[in-house]
């Protein structure tokens, strides 16, 4: 790790001005950023921690929308989203281990947009909005491929809004070593549509499986997708699975998420 300065602002405004410094970067739970810095693969000069910004924390529900502060930990989401949005709470409860869940934040996860991160699948499937210090970005416009998002330099995710589905479920098929999803599928049944967010599988990062969405919108059952196939083109191939295997798992996990949706 190289030397860096740590700033701990108490408000979003303070954070935004601290982020204006050269080579400044937000720090959420540090679960991704700190190991990267230890390996000397990242070398920010200033880290602006979101940890003490109370306005960026907590889960609340208003009508059909769940609002989660950008600095809310996975552990908090697992508890506080449980009754209103069990699909999201279930997803959060399976991220990493207790230490990761007690530090890692939803803002950090979405900003990082790891191709195998769990939250992006939920955000795409729920349909929602990423709120930053500067603007609101619709879920469908937020993710721009592996590790890339619509965020500008110095832009901070302050709040994440989810449209609470009638039913939802997240199925995570774990990569045996990291236990990140090898393939993760979030299925959300809304009153007017079904949305399916898939993570872990594609070289372009999280995506919506639109054929399945159409099939499920008219018949929300695992059988509805039995005739569909997922193409292996553009799927990730690595130590833990070939593109064919991942394509196959997308369908299996989608079916299981539909059956388990509540």
């Amino acid at each position, binding site marked *: 790790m190289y030397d860096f300065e740590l700033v701990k602002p108490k408000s979003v405004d303070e954070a935004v001005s601290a982020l204006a410094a050269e080579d400044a970067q937000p720090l959420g739970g540090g679960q991704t950023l700190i190991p990267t810095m230890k390996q000397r693969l990242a070398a920010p000069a200033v880290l602006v921690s979101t940890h003490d910004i109370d306005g960026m924390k907590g889960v609340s529900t208003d009508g059909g929308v769940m609002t989660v502060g950008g600095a809310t930990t996975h552990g908090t989401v697992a508890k506080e989203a449980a009754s209103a949005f069990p699909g999201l709470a279930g997803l959060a409860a399976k991220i990493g281990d207790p230490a990761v869940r007690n530090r890692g934040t939803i803002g950090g996860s979405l900003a990082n947009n790891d191709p195998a991160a769990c939250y992006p699948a939920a955000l795409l499937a729920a349909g929602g909005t990423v709120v930053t210090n500067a603007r609101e970005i619709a879920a469908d416009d937020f993710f721009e491929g592996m590790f890339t998002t619509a965020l500008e330099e110095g832009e901070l995710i302050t709040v994440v809004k989810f449209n609470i589905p009638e039913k939802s479920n997240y199925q995570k098929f774990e990569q045996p070593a990291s236990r990140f999803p090898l393939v993760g599928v979030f299925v959300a049944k809304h009153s007017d549509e079904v949305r399916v967010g898939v993570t872990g599988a594609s070289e372009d990062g999280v995506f919506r499986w639109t054929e399945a969405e159409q099939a499920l919108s008219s018949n929300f059952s695992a059988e509805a997708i039995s005739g569909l196939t997922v193409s292996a083109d553009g799927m990730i191939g690595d130590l*833990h699975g*070939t593109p064919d295997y991942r394509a196959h*798992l997308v369908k299996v996990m989608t079916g299981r998420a539909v059956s388990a949706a509540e």
Partner: protein
Amino acid sequence: MPKDHGIGASSKRREDVRFLTGKGRYTDDINIRGQAYVHFLRSDVAHGKINGLDTSAAESAPGVLRVFTGADFEGVGGLPCGWQVTDREGNPMQEPAHPVLAQGKVRHVGDPIAAVVAETYEQARDAAEQITVDIEELPAVMDMKAALKPDAPKVHEDLTSNLCYDWGFVEENREATNAAFEKAHHVTTLELVNQRLVANPMEPRVAIGDYAAHSDESTLYTTSQNPHVIRLLMGAFVLGIPEHKLRVVAPDVGGGFGSKIFHYAEEAFCTFAAKALKRPVKWVSSRSEAFLSDAQGRDHVTRIELALDAEGHFQALRTETYANMGAYLSTFSTSVPTWLHGTLMAGNYRTPLIYVNVKAVFTNTVPVDAYRGAGRPEATFQLERVIDKAAREMGIDPVELRRRNFVTEFPYATPVAVEYDTGDYNATLDRALEMADWDGFEARAAESAKKGLWRGRGINSYIEACGIAPSQLVGQLGARAGLYESATVRVNATGGLVVMTGSHSHGQGHETAFPQVIADMIGIDESQVEIVHGDTANTPMGMGTYGSRSIAVGGSAMVRAAEKVIAKAKKIAAHLMEAAPEDVELKDGQFSVAGTDKSIAWGDVTLAAYVPHNYPLDEIEPGLEETAFYDPSNFTYPAGAYVCEVEVDPETGKVRVDRFAAADDFGNVVNPMIVEGQVHGGLAQGIGQALLEGCTYDETGQLLSASYMDYAMPRADDLPSFQVDHSCQTPCTHNPLGVKGCGEAGAIGSPPALVNAVVDALQRGGKDVTHIDMPLSPARVWAAMQ
């Protein structure tokens, strides 16, 4: 009634108090005043010629004391290999130089090129980034078979090829074995890979070199399983320091699994640099560095053939194995695929003819050496897989086929040069089947089917050779070391004892188990006995701990030393009681004279030994301290049977281990709880190998599984609650305790049981799958089903 103390009691591990409360003293807990820190600049290419190395910027970077390169080690010896293997033609193996820092060439990713010593660790690392290395990349030698082609690039230019040796065992049996195959009723053939593993002890390696100018003495603190061996190898072969000027200390060590047996470049470097700089020099491996510099395990590619008669009796066995040595020969690397593997190919069976061929190959990868089981897991895996396949092909029940071929009379001389002293393979198999409820399988399979899962079951019957070894025998086989063990038993004046042992405890629980033996022999409380180990300054020359040898060899040395102590104490007691020494008995800490009411306490005798006022000084010396060296007359042969039951998800290929029963015959057992713990750990590692672990390089020699993000370690929830039993006991016939050793059994016996079970599940599910290479990841199992 289970015993509550002494041999056979589950005494609680006394060392755990300090381990679990954070009071252990590991090498990294040692900090010497004035110590400097070293960071190694390691190669990021697998194979290349060093055309230029510019360290000038690094040398003037803040805090830097000195930058060392290969040139500094030109007059210094290389890291030695401790076992010379002779090939099929009687020629010695090809043995390349293994420099402490690379000289002219790098041969694997992680090969150290330069070492920066600075005031702080960060300064050393910062400065290392300023070193420029001009490396001309050469094609990486990765595939073992391709490496042996005549036009293959060479890992070592000065050798004739990438072949270390081509070994045949027993060469004289080759023709007869081939002839038996010609005549066989049935031949089963299997090609398989025993994949490369990373040992991953919880504590990464650490080394601290220290030099005392006033006495010209060097001290190395290191994470080692055998400090005396390191002292001998490093002193005699690398740095040229006489043993009386070199002390090696291995304090608390957080696991080794074999990877801390070997002498490593970093140890030699820190000792060398401390003397050069007159400053203590410390190195702490990061986990990432451990993946690139700790010797790795296994990595065999094998073709095995089994010849059977019409009734399924084994007629002959033939194997051809390619064994990966990596880029250099690690300390005991050459013995693993040969003497620790070929000698076990008989398994528990009466196979009259066996021929084992092993080609050891250099590649541009991290060196490979012994890892928990070392050669024996590789032997067991092939054998138990091919037997299962043969059973299926011939339509014979796999349990029955094994029973039909079991060795049942002892001693039994195998055609691969070893003699089993005792065993009862039917007994352990019966016990394992009973524990796993083998007969209730069909009902459980039906339950699984209701959930859409395929259930399968597999067995394995294994034997291993432990307690290495008769020194004269291994000397004939090429070992460059003796393999005895030593102990000094020092009795203090007030009756307590200290045992200084050459064995080293790095998780095994010696500090608890060894006192149980002494306490029993004398009849005193275990708390009166203390174990000292791990420091060449205060223990007799010992060979250390590996190959499940501690209780069998180190324990025997301790018994022999204690016997000498007791014999002398009896003479003192006889004098004090005015009786003949041969009439004196020792029981429950009291000496008594047979047939009289005379008695005297242990403590009174020990006090007399050191306060010899009333003492037979004309016959014996004062004091009560004896040393013994024990050199075993044979290996010990633990054996057992394992049963594994799995559920396979046919949609995803995911395997869940539902039950695992292990019945082991370890001979006599000193501490059943510790033995159970050793089996649990071994099973976790074996199931880890079968299901999860695998070290993977790409074709350019980059390690793909270089962290826990990609190298899958077993976690508690990957494992079932084990059923473990060691009630079948056929005591070893040739050591004083009748013990055999238990440290590796679990890792040896579990992989074939698990793979057999998964293949069985797929077969029951209607898939014609006869083998899947480990690890049986969901992706591989699914691919095998397609």
